[in-house]
């Protein structure tokens, strides 16, 4: 049995956890050849990789799609070969042919969970009549980034959280280093602020590092991110980081391989499997320490 997988990018932290988990799981299954490719965020390349797999005659394909709005093109490229979408939900999820399925999380949850928790914490700290802060975006061309930022704005739009005000938002491209520089730039204006929301953990950590370097007390600032990476949990353990969101890589990884094998063998599978996000705070962080 031969499975080919393509991932939107190899150097994404969370996807790496997913990827490596899948390699491990695939090795544990007898007679399974598992091969993975890097689409380096290039949609056309990913479509070609799927076509290449088909030319190769693999038995099933797993796709972590670069762009969720290109579901139709990927579906078409696979033809009759069984295909499983993993992690990201393609826009044609309701029209998938019987040879295809998907195993993913609903991206709308992640940003919302994190922002709402920060909102509640600010209220609890008695800042309910006005709090100002910054929002760090991931790559603006990335849909997860766009979605997570939109979630933040939606949360702030709610009555309960409309005391929150965004002073400025700017991209730091998922990166800790750029987040440090961006945060330092913001702080150089001297404006006081109460929270920092970031589209992922790396940027949140970068912001925390910059604030600590400037001598700020992290108890005064609420910081929220997404991913629950190990680095993030350790920063949380040190008391600097307040809110993040966990996404289950093992569940998605094994789930997608199992579905691919079943499809290749002609068995029926559920076409949609949602794996939920989980909010992580200092209270429950110990449950997640060795998960991602």
């Amino acid at each position, binding site marked *: 049995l031969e499975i080919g997988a393509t991932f939107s990018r190899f150097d994404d932290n969370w996807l790496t956890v997913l990827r490596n988990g899948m390699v491990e799981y695939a090795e544990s299954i007898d007679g399974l050849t598992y091969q993975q490719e890097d689409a380096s965020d290039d949609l056309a390349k990913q479509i*070609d990789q799927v*076509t*290449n797999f088909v030319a190769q005659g693999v038995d099933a394909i797993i796709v972590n799609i670069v762009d969720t709005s*290109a579901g139709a093109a990927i579906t078409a490229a696979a033809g009759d070969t069984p295909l499983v979408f993993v992690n990201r939900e393609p826009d044609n999820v309701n029209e998938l042919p019987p040879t295809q399925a998907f195993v993913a999380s609903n991206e709308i949850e992640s940003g919302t969970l994190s922002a709402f928790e920060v909102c509640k914490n600010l209220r609890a700290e008695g800042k309910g009549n006005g709090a100002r802060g910054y929002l760090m975006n991931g790559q*603006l*061309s990335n849909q997860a980034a766009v979605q997570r930022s939109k979630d933040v704005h939606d949360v702030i739009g709610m009555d309960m959280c409309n005391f929150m005000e965004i002073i400025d938002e700017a991209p730091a491209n998922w990166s800790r280093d750029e987040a440090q520089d961006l945060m330092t730039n913001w702080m150089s204006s001297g404006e006081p602020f109460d929270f920092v929301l970031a589209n992922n953990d790396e940027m949140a950590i970068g912001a925390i590092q910059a604030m600590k370097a400037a001598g700020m007390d992290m108890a005064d600032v609420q910081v929220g991110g997404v991913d629950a990476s190990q680095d993030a949990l350790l920063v949380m353990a040190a008391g600097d980081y307040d809110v993040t969101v966990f996404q289950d890589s093992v569940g998605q990884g094994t789930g997608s391989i199992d579905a691919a094998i079943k499809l290749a063998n002609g068995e029926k599978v559920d076409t949609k499997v949602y794996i939920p996000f989980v909010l992580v705070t200092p209270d429950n962080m110990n449950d997640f320490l060795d998960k991602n």
Partner: protein
Amino acid sequence: MADTSHGTGGLVFDKSKRSWPNELNIALALIIIIAIFEILGQVLPYMNGQSFLFDTRDRFDSVFNEARLKIIILQVAIIGIIAIGVTQVILTAGIDLSSGPLVAATAMIAMSFAQTELVNGNPNPKAVFGPWAMDLPVIIPVLAGLAFGAMIGAINGTFVAYFRIPPFIATLGMFLGCRGIALWWTSGNPVSFPTESYSFIGSGMMPVVWFLALAAIFHFILRYTVYGKHTYAIGSNEEAARMSGINVKRHKVMVYMIASMLAAFAGIVLSSKASTAQAGMGEFYELFAIAMAVIGGISLTGGRGSIIGTVLGAMVLGVIRSGFTYVKLDGSYQLMAMGSIIIAAVILDQYRQRNRA
């Protein structure tokens, strides 16, 4: 004894030793790379003697694995279209870094004039404009895209030719500018659900058809027209071209415009192929387009090379990519191996060229 049919007398000129065209070296490199994959297929134990190019399923109608042949060229066709334009820019001793982001920006713009009103009976969820811009004839998005490309190219060319900005900087500025336009157009949201006629542009093997047709056209233009001759002359010695009375500035603007229009067209084909347009599209395309040209023997100092070379350079990249999938090379090694093979191909080319002299 001297063959002087094209000379004015003088030394012995042995016509049989006429210079061996550069393109043959690259073709040779291509064949060697294919042979290596073929051999690897026989040698590697887990490949079960599968063949790279040939059909092992024992059919009557073809000895080749057609699916593989098609994908080899299909996957480089779009970047190849860009490379045709970049080749011309490089021939003038310039460089064009803006093509990757230009692909994205054009894709966004063209696609937003190519949307359908109804998707499976529901209103288009990604609609950019109101109903007036829905289900337009296909010519409109195409012209919009090409016009945008022409505009960017004109700006690039004007900066390079009239303001004497180094091409690297002028097009790096446009690189940032076009990425910005792509992001700003729909604030990062993808644009999807094109009309059927727009989808046709990039469907199936159409990208290959465009690529080869454009390559043929520009091969002819570069070789047999005044435009081509002046392009080479400028790259060879810009000062001499100017002193010989070529309107160097106007010509450069034209070259950059043509290059950007080709990149814009690549953006149209790409968005049609993917049925979506997204601001992050085309990342690193500019580098790979340049790489195709240089692997194909186009000299970055200008004046030397041909479109045939670029097409062969594109094929080299296509074969490498398919080959890696074929030998089941893991993604994390693919980059390393790709780097080595590109260098090896050029070494081979250099080596042959030197031995000839």
